[in-house]
């Protein structure tokens, strides 16, 4: 056999061995990675509500909406709530936020769960407090505008999207 072919085969073999190795590592880390991603999401939910007080269910959203979490209060005094996962184009990629809205159409809280800004430069959006007090009712959505220089339009868009559909959802459309 000629030398080039053998070298090619050697490269191929090494490639396959490496691929298999990765598959094995992936087999062990993939569930853990999924757990980590979930943890980030549920950790965010836990910031808004005491999860033990609610029955939690999920609905896949469409369009700009990702998963929508439906929280039904276990006791009669508690309010039911929706937590929306919403995506919008930031100035450099997708920004994903969670927005918690309760029965009285008040925003109970919000959190950025994913953003793809440059490290060190665009991190502002995550660390920044979006002035939570100002944005407690839906009419005050512009209140969060001071958030971050570059990402404000995307954040506003997210709130607008939620404002546009939240009433319909509480009207019974989504509560199943």
């Amino acid at each position: 056999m000629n030398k080039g072919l053998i070298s090619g085969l050697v490269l191929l073999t090494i490639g396959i061995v490496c691929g298999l190795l990765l598959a094995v590592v992936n087999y062990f880390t993939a569930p853990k990675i999924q757990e980590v991603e979930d943890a980030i999401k549920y950790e965010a939910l836990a910031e808004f509500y005491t999860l033990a007080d609610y029955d939690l269910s999920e609905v896949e959203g469409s369009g700009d909406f990702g998963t929508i979490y439906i929280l039904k209060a276990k006791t009669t005094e508690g309010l039911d709530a929706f937590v929306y996962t919403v995506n919008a184009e930031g100035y450099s990629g997708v920004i994903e936020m969670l927005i918690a809205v309760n029965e009285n159409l008040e925003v109970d809280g919000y959190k950025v769960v994913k953003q793809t800004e440059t490290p060190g430069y665009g991190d502002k959006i995550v660390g920044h407090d979006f002035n939570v007090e100002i944005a407690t009712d839906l009419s005050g959505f512009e209140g969060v505008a001071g958030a971050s220089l570059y990402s404000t339009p995307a954040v506003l868009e997210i709130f607008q999207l939620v404002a546009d559909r939240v009433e319909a959802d509480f009207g019974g459309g989504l509560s199943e």
Partner: protein
Amino acid sequence: MDNLIMLAFSAFIIENIILSQFLGICPFLGVSTKRSSALGMGMAVIFVMLISSSVTWLLYKYVLEAFDITYMRTIVFILVIASLVQMVETFLKKVSPPLYKALGIYLPLITTNCAVLGVAILNISKEHNFLEMLVYTTFIGLGFLFVMYIFSMLREKLDFAPVPKAFKGAPIALVIAAILAIIFSRFGGII
């Protein structure tokens, strides 16, 4: 359309690949001593970046994601880039000798240029669609060329400047890059 213009502008200036993302620093310092070589390197990078980002994007969407082996991303991407660079080199040599003469010597350097792999990965992690990927890659490449060219002009002048001995070479180049970075970061306020 608005989104694409925004994307193009931020890729070109605000998110400038060299001055704010720190990719492609090696050629930025290494090949920027003369204007002609800065131009050549910049062109070669745009060329390779566009081809490799397109190929890797398609491979990722239609092969890696389809077979659920996205963890092979890094290996596949770097191999694609390395072999593409080889192919482009051979192809240019045969088809267009003048272009080969202009870009040829920069091509081998590009395999280990982190800008090319970086942009391929960024296009995936930012979840760009095909059109956005093309616009983003083109303008990131143009941003690279633009900054390389400005920088090479400054460095040509620098040859005649009385630079302190300890600052000769890389240190003064980095300080100049810092000043350029201040200017570019101020454009962030536009959006």
